[in-house]
C-alpha cells in the first residue's frame, strides 16, 4: 500500500512537471513577452513572475528586453545656419515601449535592426535641427543666448515624432549631445587665433601691471600730499589760535611799549645767535670798548 502511494506521488510529480513545462512560462524582470495565439499577437505580459499559456502550436511566445538600450551616433559634420561646420555626436537611451507594435516592424523583434532604424532617424533629425542653429546657440557665455538644451530637446522631439508616426513601439528615454567639435583643419586655425589672443593678453598684462602700479602710486602721492596739506592747514589754524590766545596778553605791554620792544629785541638777539654764528665786533662798541678804557690793554689782533 505504502509503495503504491509513493509510486503515485512520483508519477504525480512527474506529471506536474510535464504540465508546468507545457503550460507555464516565466517572465524575467525587465522582460516583456508577447503571447501570440495561432501566430497572431494577442497579449503582452510585462509582470515578472510565472504565467500560463496554451501549449504550442496554439500559443507561442516572443521575448523582448525592455531595458534602456544606449547608443551613440557617429561624430559627424553638420552645416550650421551661419555656414560654419560643427561636428557633433548624440547619445540616446531608448527602450521597447510597445512590444506588440515592435514585433511586426522588425524581423524577429531584433533590437539590432531597431537600433539601425533609430540611427537613421537620428541622423536626419540631427542634420535638420543642428542646421537650423548658429554656432552661438551651441557655445555662448550669455545664458540667454545659449540654446544647448533646446537643441537636444528639438532633436529628441523630432525623433519621437518620427517614431510615433510609424508606430515602431519604441520610446526615447533620454537624448543628449555627447560631443561637439570642429573639423581637423579648423582646429589649427583656432590654435593660431588662441595664440594671437594669448599674446595680446601678455601685452595687456604687462601694460596693465605698470599702469595700475603707477596709478596706485600716483593716487598714494596725491593722498599723501592732501594729508600733508591738511596737516599744514591745521598747523596754521593751531598757530593762529595761539596768536589769538597770546593777543589777550598783549594789553599788558601797553603800559610801556618801549620797554616791551626792547625786551623783544633782546630776546631776538639771544635766539638768533648760536654756535654757527660768527660775530664781528667793532672794539669801539660796548661791551668791547671796555678795553679802550684801560690805559694799556689789548688792542688790535684780538680774535
Amino acid at each position, binding site marked *: 500500500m505504502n509503495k503504491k502511494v509513493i509510486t503515485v506521488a512520483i508519477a504525480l510529480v512527474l506529471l506536474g512537471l510535464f504540465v508546468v513545462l507545457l503550460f507555464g512560462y516565466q517572465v524575467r524582470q525587465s522582460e516583456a513577452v508577447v503571447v501570440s495565439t495561432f501566430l497572431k499577437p494577442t497579449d503582452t505580459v510585462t509582470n515578472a*513572475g510565472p504565467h500560463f499559456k496554451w501549449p504550442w502550436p496554439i500559443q507561442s511566445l516572443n521575448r523582448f528586453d525592455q531595458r*534602456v538600450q544606449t547608443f551613440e551616433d557617429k561624430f559627424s559634420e553638420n552645416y550650421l545656419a551661419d555656414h560654419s561646420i560643427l561636428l557633433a555626436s548624440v547619445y540616446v537611451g531608448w527602450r521597447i515601449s510597445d512590444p506588440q507594435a515592435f514585433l511586426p516592424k522588425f524581423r524577429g523583434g531584433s533590437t539590432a535592426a531597431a537600433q539601425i532604424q533609430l540611427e537613421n532617424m537620428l541622423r536626419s533629425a540631427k542634420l535638420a535641427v543642428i542646421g537650423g542653429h548658429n554656432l552661438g546657440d551651441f557655445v555662448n557665455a550669455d545664458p540667454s543666448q545659449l540654446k544647448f538644451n533646446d537643441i537636444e530637446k528639438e532633436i529628441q522631439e523630432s525623433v519621437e515624432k518620427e517614431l510615433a508616426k510609424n508606430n515602431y513601439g519604441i520610446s526615447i*528615454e533620454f537624448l543628449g*549631445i555627447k*560631443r561637439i567639435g570642429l573639423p581637423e583643419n579648423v582646429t589649427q586655425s583656432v590654435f593660431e587665433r588662441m595664440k594671437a589672443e594669448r599674446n595680446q593678453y*601678455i601685452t595687456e598684462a604687462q601694460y596693465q601691471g605698470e599702469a*595700475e602700479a603707477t596709478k596706485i602710486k600716483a593716487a598714494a602721492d596725491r593722498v599723501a600730499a592732501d594729508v600733508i596739506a591738511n596737516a599744514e592747514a591745521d598747523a596754521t589754524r593751531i598757530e593762529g589760535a595761539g596768536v589769538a590766545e597770546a593777543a589777550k*596778553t598783549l594789553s599788558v605791554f601797553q603800559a610801556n611799549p618801549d620797554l616791551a620792544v626792547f625786551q623783544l629785541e633782546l630776546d631776538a638777539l639771544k635766539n638768533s645767535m648760536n654756535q654757527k654764528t660768527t660775530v664781528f665786533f667793532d*672794539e669801539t662798541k660796548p661791551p668791547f670798548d671796555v678795553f679802550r678804557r684801560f690805559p694799556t690793554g689789548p688792542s*688790535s689782533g684780538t680774535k
Partner: protein
Amino acid sequence: MSDHDHLDDTHAPETQDSGSQALSEALHSSFVIVQVAMVALVFIILGLGVFRVHPGEKAVVLHFGRPLGEGREMLKSPGSLYWSYPYPIDEVVRIPIAEIQQVTSSVGWYAMTHQEEVAFDSLGVEPPAAGSLNPRDGYVFTADRNIIHTRATVSYHIEDPLTAIFHFASGTNQEFNLAGVSNAVQNAANNALVSTAARYNVDDILTRDPAGFQAAVERRINELVESEQLGVVIDPGQCQVRSEAPRQLKDIFAEVTKARQKRETLISDALGQQKRILSEAGANASSITNAAESARVRYVTAIESDAEAFTKLLPQYETNPKLFCELELTKTMSVVLTNVGEKKILPTRAGGKSVELRLMLNNEPPQPKSAANP
C-alpha cells in the same frame, strides 16, 4: 490424471511462487534504489541551492524571474552562505559591484595609447602633439570659442538597485550588470562637460574659476542622473574635473600666466608702496600738527612769561630807563657771546677809522673736474 501429472501439478505452484518471489525481490530492491536515488537527488538539489557571494560582487535572487527583496535589501553581500531554489524556480544573478562606483568621462581628453596613459598618470609625461586635433582627440569647445582638454571623474553609489541593475542594458545580451547604468552615468558626465564648457570662457575654466566650473559640471551631472532616473546618486563633492590648455599651446598659456603673475606682483608692490607713502604722510601730518601745537603752546607761554617779566621789570625800567637798558643789553651780550661759535673783534686804526673787512658771501666754490668727478 496420472501420478506424473499429479506430481507436475504439485510442483508447478512452487516454481511459480519462487519466480514471483524473485521478481518481487528484484522490484523491491529496485524500488529501494529508486527511493535512495530520490532522496539523494533531493539532497543534491538542496545542496546545489547553497551559494556564496564572492568579494567584489553582489547577488540578486530572481524568484520566477522577479527579484526577491526591496531596495538595497535585494542585494546579497559577500560573507554569508545563501540558499535558493534550483533553476528555473530561482536564478542567482551575480553583479560585479563595489560600494563606490567610479566613471571617467570619455570625450574631453586627447587620445592616448595605454602606454602613454600609464606614462601620463605616473610621470605626467604628455604624448607628443600634432599641429591640429583629429577626431580621435577629445576636447571641449568653450563659450569664447576656444579649445581645451577636460575630463571628469565621478564617484557614485547605487541608490535603487532595481532601477540601476534591471533598467539599463549593456548590449544586446540578457545579462544583468552595472555596465548599462555605468555607461549612462558616463554619458551624463560627457554631456555635462560639453554643455558646461559651452557657457564658460577658457580663462574661467583654467584659471579664474576652475572650482565654479567643477561645481557646475557636478550640478549638470546630478540633473541628468535625476531626469534620466538612473537609480544612482553622485557622491557630493566627488566629481573631480581636470582641465588643461591644449598641448600645442602650453607654452603660450604659461607665458600668459607668468605675465599675469608679474602684473600682480607689480600691483602688489605698488600697494605696498601706497601703504608706505600713506603711512609716512600720516606720520608727517601728525608731526606737523604736533609741532604746530607745540609752537602754539610755546608762543602763548612765551608771551605770558614775557608779560610776567615785563610787569616785574617795568618799575625798574621806569626808575632809570637808560641804565636799565644798558644793564640788560650787557647781560644779553654776555649770553650771546657765550653762545656764538666765532667772535671777531675788529681793531680800529690809529686815526680812529675802522679796519675795512671784505667777505666772500657766495656759496661753496665748485669742485675742479677730475677723473673721479667728471
